[in-house]
């Protein structure tokens, strides 16, 4: 399984990420998720979110999740970018892409990964008013 993990303060460049995709001829499904900073946290309007990561542990925990995904589903590639630092409203903080033979496993794996990430990967957010 191809794994590509980036935790970085650089802006997420969708066009570049897409141009770098590789896919073998047996693959039929690409799922792609983009998490974007919204203009409100609860009732409060915000202008940005500061993301903080315990990077070394975050990388390790992501790889434990990727290990588990590799056991559960026939995924060819998982690529994930989590932006840290200040991310303005309307900008993406998370980009995830799964390539798999069929859409069922691609959807299941992508949802599972995001749910688990929010449970175990040490990244936190702090809204900026």
């Amino acid at each position, binding site marked *: 399984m191809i794994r590509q993990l980036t935790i970085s303060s650089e802006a997420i460049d969708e066009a570049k990420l897409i141009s770098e995709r590789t896919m073998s001829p047996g693959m039929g499904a690409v799922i792609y998720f983009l998490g974007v900073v919204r203009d409100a946290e609860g009732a409060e309007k915000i202008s940005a979110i500061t993301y903080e990561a*315990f990077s*070394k*542990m975050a990388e390790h925990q992501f790889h434990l999740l990727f290990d588990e995904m590799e056991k559960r589903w026939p995924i060819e590639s998982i690529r994930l970018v989590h932006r840290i630092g200040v991310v303005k409203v309307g900008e993406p903080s*998370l980009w995830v892409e799964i390539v798999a033979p069929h859409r069922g496993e691609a959807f299941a794996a992508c949802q599972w990964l995001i749910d688990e990430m929010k449970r*175990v990967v040490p*990244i*936190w957010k702090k809204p900026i008013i």
Partner: protein
Amino acid sequence: MFPPLNWLIMRVAVHFYSYFKELTGCADTLEEISDGAAIADLQNQLTKKFPKLASMQKSTLIAVGVEYQKKDYVLKEGDEVSLFPPVQGG
């Protein structure tokens, strides 16, 4: 024939993340604790030093190195312990 006192004491580095840094006023602290102490003991010691951590005790997540550990984990000299609130990536 008694070992020197410092043989019975170990040092562990403690790191705080997210708003735990604001609760403690620092990002890191070096703690001395009795040999054989578990994470639960370290947490009690930290709560005395940083009383604002007490309110978060139930939801605190604890890692040693890059692995999550439970309160009964027995610490070793040189362990890097991290305490932080529930994670919120994405």
